[in-house]
């Protein structure tokens, strides 16, 4: 009996491909107010796990505002506030390790997607993610009574035992694309905005098309103030962090 050949799985990514959707976060503007964290949780039906579970490191935020210490104790310096969400890597380390193909690369949107109904909860992807942005539903967390009324019907309510992560608010991307298609045009710059970018009072998070060189996010990504998290790993992250340098925000 001939054994059917199993196709080799690898993230299909070409060197130099810039991706479709991207984000630029200006760390000089971020005040660490956590509005993006709250907006993200509300938009994406992310439950609040409570203090005890959070103590075990089981918090379920899709975005976190990170701040690190630099130097030894008495002479510590704080780094700027840095919102960290899924970097939607072009060559994502989480993808090839999933045994059930629940974390796949969306060829159409050039995003890294989590297919909840396929996920069996091995948590390999989270262990292989260098940015530690994948979170696991350790339980069916309780949502006290008024909270279920604000569920977003466009987003799946995940069950226990499922890995989840930032999707770049793909439901909003779809809505914008749908509207653009109905009107027979391309998606306008700024038409699709994830909840974090929308909520940011300092306008530190900018989202848009990376394959359009004229879009705001493309210009910011090319800026000499920009850098990528753990760029040396070759993950091709789609989020650019801007810091210091020129006063010109587009420079």
């Amino acid at each position, binding site marked *: 009996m001939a054994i059917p050949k199993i196709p080799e799985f690898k993230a299909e990514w070409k060197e130099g491909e810039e991706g479709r959707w991207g984000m630029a976060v200006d760390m000089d503007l971020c005040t660490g107010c956590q509005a993006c964290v709250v907006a993200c949780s509300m938009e994406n039906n992310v439950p609040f796990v409570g203090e005890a579970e959070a103590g075990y490191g089981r918090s379920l935020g899709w975005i976190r505002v990170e701040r690190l210490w630099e130097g030894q104790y008495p002479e510590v310096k704080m780094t700027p506030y840095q919102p960290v969400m899924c970097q939607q890597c072009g060559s994502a380390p989480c993808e090839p390790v999933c045994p059930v193909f629940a974390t796949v690369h969306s060829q159409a949107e050039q995003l890294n997607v989590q297919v909840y109904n396929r996920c069996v909860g091995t948590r390999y992807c989270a262990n292989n993610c260098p940015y530690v942005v994948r979170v696991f539903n350790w339980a069916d967390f309780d949502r006290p009574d008024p909270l279920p009324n604000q569920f977003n019907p466009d987003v799946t309510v995940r069950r226990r035992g499922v890995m989840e992560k930032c999707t770049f608010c793909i439901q909003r991307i779809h809505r914008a694309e*749908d509207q653009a298609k109905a009107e027979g045009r391309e998606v306008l710059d700024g038409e699709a905005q994830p909840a974090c970018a929308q909520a940011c009072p300092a306008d530190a998070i900018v989202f848009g098309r990376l394959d359009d060189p004229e879009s705001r996010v493309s210009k910011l990504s090319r800026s000499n103030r920009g850098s990528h998290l753990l760029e040396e790993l070759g993950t091709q992250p789609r989020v650019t962090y801007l810091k210091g340098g020129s006063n010109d925000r587009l420079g």
Partner: protein
Amino acid sequence: MANLLEILKKKEVVLLLVIAFLALLSGGAWAMYQTQIPPEQPIQFPHNIHVGLQIQCLYCHPGAQRQASAGLPTQQKCWACHGQLRKYSDPAAPVALNLWPTELQKLAGYVERNEPIPWVPVYQVPDHVHFNHRPHIAAGFACETCHGDMSKKTVATVGETVNMGWCINCHLENSVEDPLKRTKLIDCATCHY
């Protein structure tokens, strides 16, 4: 291991195993049947009569053209026509409510009590699937492609087995010559997020 084989040789044990297997099988069949029967509706709405009167699907389900959900008509929408049917509500010779057809009496009851009609959606997809009517209507698909010929149905029933294979089949058939369209149509993120 040898012990287990000895036990399996006994007739009673084999019989018990067969019974257990059959029970599981029939349980599964019953569960699958349960998903295929149409749900109980508050009003036994006759689609065939309304479609026969040349009323467009989009008149009562207008959401299909502009949003994800096609929507189910409110009592105001029903009453907009039924409140002025000459047959029953002619101001010159109104027919008493208790002489109306039973299903119309139910509708009149909802209107009188100003209650929404608790329609039960028939075509449902799981929570992790995000179906959107709008692109399907925009692509020029007729309602009966998925919902069957409603001029032959009274209460709405599921005409097709709505599962992923069925969706993907149609998506593949309709994107044979356009690889870009196919990329979009068979992408996980198109429906699952």
